């Protein structure tokens, strides 16, 4: 555990000093802040627009951070050969992979926290600045704490994306890893179509294959409760808990795969 912690802290240190991360976070915070201006352009719908844009920004920029840093972490170590010295130290390859993952998740938690604080600052200001009669018309409070459930599920989703990016990067190039990760993310958001393939096609093989893929591929749509959060619709804690459990179990399987591949690899 100590070794994993050391690797994780090192990843965190490295990534917070990388300019690409700063750029992404600054851009995300700017995006969330400017949603305030966009909200001003829409009569009566401003808070809803800001919430929509804010949560979407957290999700999209989180995804970019996961993919860009996730795919680069292991690949860069191998390509630049810094892994040679590291693996000669008393560290198992599995500890290296898991440490890298934990470090990246730590980075993501900090970034998502920064973006969430920026988001709540903007919506909080909106709620405070709105006249009493306008505020009364909001479907839910401007700085509704229930939106944190959506943020929590975004975080779990990002953890899964990171694990997938790391998995691909243990054996593939960054470009291919990015393509495969984003590809899975897109498919995972339209997963229901795979399950319902039977209503579009007649072939039983295709229907069976669609169902199999539905269960095997990550169901990213399950993590998306942004619309409910924006409209103030209830998101049961049970759902959040079960979805988080699903996400974390999936992460565990993906990491086992990454460790297995990485442990057998030759570093030529």
């Amino acid at each position, binding site marked *: 555990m*100590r*070794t994993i912690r*050391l690797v994780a802290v*090192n990843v965190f*240190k*490295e990534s917070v*000093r*990388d300019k690409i991360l700063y750029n992404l976070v600054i851009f995300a915070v700017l995006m969330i802040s400017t949603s305030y201006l966009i909200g001003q352009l829409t009569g009566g719908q401003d808070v809803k627009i800001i919430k929509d844009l804010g949560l979407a920004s957290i999700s999209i920029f989180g995804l970019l951070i996961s993919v860009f840093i996730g795919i680069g972490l292991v690949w860069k170590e191998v390509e*630049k*050969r*810094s*892994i*040679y*010295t590291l*693996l*000669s*130290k*008393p*560290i*198992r390859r599995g500890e290296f992979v898991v440490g890298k993952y934990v470090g990246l998740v730590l980075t993501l938690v900090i970034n998502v926290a920064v973006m969430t604080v920026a988001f709540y600052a903007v919506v909080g200001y909106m709620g405070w600045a709105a006249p009493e009669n306008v505020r009364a018309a909001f479907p839910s409070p401007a700085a509704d704490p229930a939106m944190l459930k959506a943020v929590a599920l975004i975080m779990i989703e990002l953890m899964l994306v990171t694990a997938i990016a790391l998995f691909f990067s243990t054996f593939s190039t960054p470009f291919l890893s990015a393509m495969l990760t984003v590809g899975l993310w897109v498919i995972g958001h339209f997963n229901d179509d795979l399950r319902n393939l039977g209503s579009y096609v007649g072939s039983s093989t295709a229907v069976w294959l669609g169902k199999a893929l539905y269960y095997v591929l990550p169901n990213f749509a399950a993590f998306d409760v942004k619309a409910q959060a924006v409209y103030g619709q209830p998101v049961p804690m049970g759902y959040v808990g079960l979805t988080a459990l699903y996400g974390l179990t999936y992460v565990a399987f993906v990491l086992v795969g990454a460790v297995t591949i990485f442990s*057998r690899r*030759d*570093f*030529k």
Partner: protein
Amino acid sequence: MNAIEIEALTKHYTTGFWRPRPYPALDGLTLSVAPGEVFGFLGPNGAGKTTTLKLLMQLIYPTSGHASILGKPVGDIAVKQRVGYLPEQPYFYDYLTAEELLEYFAALFGASAAAARQRASGLLDDVGIGGERRVQLRKFSKGMLQRVGIAQALINEPEIVFLDEPMSGLDPLGRREIRELILRLRDRGCTVFFSSHVLADAEALCSRVAVMANGRLSATGRLSDLVAFHVRGWELVVSGLPDTALEHARSLGHVVRATKLGEGRYALELPLSPAPDRTLAEMIGQGARLVSLNPVRDTLEDFFVQQVAASKPRTSAEVA
């Protein structure tokens, strides 16, 4: 117990997409290194030196064969605890400082934060970059990175250090410093296994060497055994030698080359046969005086070139 024991270690890579063929990077290497030795692992580029070191560090897995370090199989965590490794052209994390890197590595060996800091600081001073300890590694030159690489290989006060081309990227001063460092390690009882294609380094440092060529072990032994008895001729220095006597000896083929040092004073290269005492006796008979007579031995470089030339490259067909 030997410090390093290698038995029939073989590594084949596969080349070709449609018709994969094995490419032998290392072929049946058997070798042992005793504790406390400074062992030179020599060979031209592509001889299999780095492949061997990577196998010993378990960065790659062997196709067949076996290797152990300090009596335990390579890759064992307990072994890694006692070993240091400098890869060829080392590279580290861009955004860490030299001090942070060494502290990180020291912590991986279980050092406390205070001990890690102290060790890192001492080593950076030892390798001559103490002044740059708080500079991020991305700003380091190749030579400075090499020094950081050497420092990190020693962070755990290892019993064995594996150095892959340790002098590479260093200026003459740096090379001398590293030589001195290796000798200090030897004096401390540390086993040093280093690969190089710079033979002067091996001649200055090694108690034993192995010469690799085309993935195979070409020769191994004490430096003195490998090169000292390969006497290939004699160097004779005489004074008062008349020109006629020199011409006569030349015409008989008893002198291969003559270099005039002064009036009547010559440095002569004599062949291995006939024995030099006969030529010398003739010259003394004509008024010459002996200044010195020395055997001309093969240098390690000569030996190295002979070994590499004698080893023909392996083809994949041979392996298959």
